[in-house]
């Protein structure tokens, strides 16, 4: 008992630096954000003391948010973006891992090549892609024209039908190495004798992966979906660098920005100094995240 008390004191002393930063910049903001979401910046708010001088306004920000079609459209865009990037990303990662797992020469070099872009700065990679995608003169347009493909006049990123897909392709090529490494690690745990037995039984290459590999890498798939979801709700930099939310699209007589995901929408509210409203957006985002984690944990338990 005495030992545990002594250990408790030492433990919290060791944890103190971490906990100070954790509580001031991560735990407290969750509460503080809710406080801010019930307030708004008004004309009387002092510019030098904005956050202490916001006026209480009840749930006005939330009502405004729920009525804002731009917000709902951004949620739809985020959802669409998530489905595209997670499914395409996972497919590419799996394909690369499956190929690399068949004992190719230069395994390590390929593995490093695919993993490398993962560690690079998203903003810079995004800027490079805007150059590659440039309309008319960009290399992608030129190559596409040379093989007889017609790309949109304003470029892939300039056309509302293709812009989000353009962002997804850039991000998938940047991030696919991460999923690949995870899949590879799981596949290398599968004993080759299992595959050999299947080969003797005359199982085709694709069947082999569907019936043997897939069930064994399910945890990785689940992990990639969870982290992918968080990543998509967080997505901002790639949009900022490549499209700034644009181009404009028209749907049911209203205009929307075709790549404005919720993270970017939140940023714009911050930029307009509509801090109370932006805090309300963050809170709704938090609730959506909680719903997703609840659903995912149910699925995990059910399995």
């Amino acid at each position, binding site marked *: 008992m005495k030992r545990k008390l002594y250990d408790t004191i030492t433990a919290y002393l060791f944890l103190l630096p*971490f906990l100070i930063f954790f509580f001031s*910049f991560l735990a407290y903001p969750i509460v503080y954000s809710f406080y801010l979401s019930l307030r708004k910046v008004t004309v009387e708010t002092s510019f030098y003391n904005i956050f202490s001088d916001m006026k209480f306004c009840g749930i006005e920000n939330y009502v405004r948010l729920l009525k804002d079609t731009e917000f709902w459209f951004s949620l739809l865009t985020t959802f669409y973006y998530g489905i595209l990037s997670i499914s395409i990303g996972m497919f590419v990662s799996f394909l690369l891992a499956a190929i690399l797992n068949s004992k190719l020469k230069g395994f390590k070099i*390929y593995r490093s090549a695919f993993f490398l*872009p993962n560690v690079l*700065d998203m903003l810079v990679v995004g800027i*490079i892609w805007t150059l590659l995608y440039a309309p008319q003169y960009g290399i992608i347009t030129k190559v596409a024209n040379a093989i007889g493909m017609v790309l949109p006049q304003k470029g892939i990123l300039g056309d509302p039908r293709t812009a989000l897909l353009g962002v997804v392709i850039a991000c998938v090529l940047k991030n696919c190495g991460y999923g690949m490494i995870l899949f590879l690690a799981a596949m290398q745990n599968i004993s080759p004798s299992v595959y050999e037995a299947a080969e003797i039984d005359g199982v085709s290459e694709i069947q082999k992966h569907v019936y043997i590999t897939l069930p064994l890498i399910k945890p990785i798939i689940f992990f990639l979906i969870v982290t992918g979801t968080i990543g998509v709700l*967080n997505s901002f930099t790639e949009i900022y660098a490549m499209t700034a939310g644009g181009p404009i699209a028209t749907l049911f007589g209203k205009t929307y920005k075709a790549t404005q995901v919720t993270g970017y929408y939140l*940023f714009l509210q911050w930029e307009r100094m509509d801090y109370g409203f932006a805090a309300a957006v963050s809170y709704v985002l938090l609730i959506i995240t909680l719903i997703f984690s609840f659903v995912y944990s149910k699925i995990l338990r059910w399995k």
Partner: protein
Amino acid sequence: MTEKNFQNFDLRQKVRRLLLYIIITSFAILVLFPFFWMILVAMKDEGEVFKLSLKLAKPFYKNFVEVWKNPYYPFWRFFLNSVIVSVSGGVITTFICALGGYVFAKKDFYFKEQLFWFLLSTMMIPGMMFLVPQFAIVTKLRWMNTYQGMVLPHVASVFGLFLMRQYMQTIPDEIIESARIDGAKELQIFFRLIVPLSVTVITMLFLLSFLFHWSNFLWQLVVNTPESDKLTLPVGLALYKGQYEVFWTKLMAASCYSIIPIVILFLFAQKYFIQGLTVGALKE
């Protein structure tokens, strides 16, 4: 199997392998092409940007020098700021996570489980959530346009704590006990015993948090006003791109200053990056 069937089988295998090599190599080219293009454009003259040629500027490093010395967008300063922010972010994160991870791995204390699950559960919250409240806190602390404003809100990494705990759990209890019997104090045990035994994971977390701060664009954009002298590389690049008509050769040369150091770091330490980034996923 007859001899002929056997040869057919062998040939089929060879064709199949060749096909796999072609697919994987074209993918590798696709993945790395943007970086090749960045370097190529950075070495060209502005008029040559959209031409599919390998004609370089004279001298080929012209843009790199001009960007470095630009008086309005001093990239040497942005680079220096990025280094300061990333190194200090890496050091502080690693230090506080090592201290915390150690007690979670090796001590039995009150509310340990509850605290651990509370910390872990916050990992599910997207960082975007914290933008407004953290900005409000930093404004109130008068930390706008400062290094501490860019670094300190992002040093409490729950992932880092988890990584440290995982690793330090593998250190045998007996070593710690015998050090204690020899009269070592708690801090001595930590610095003289635990730290030397955890050099691998310490390097790993330092590199990962260095990387995190190197690319922590949104937060650095939010904490700095455009006239700040603390702008980091990505923020400087974004402002440079937004300001004028785009000079692609200069922009790509400036991009190289962000990408190439990380590529070099990766080539030397890829083992740490790969292990560190995958350890969380594979443990579950």
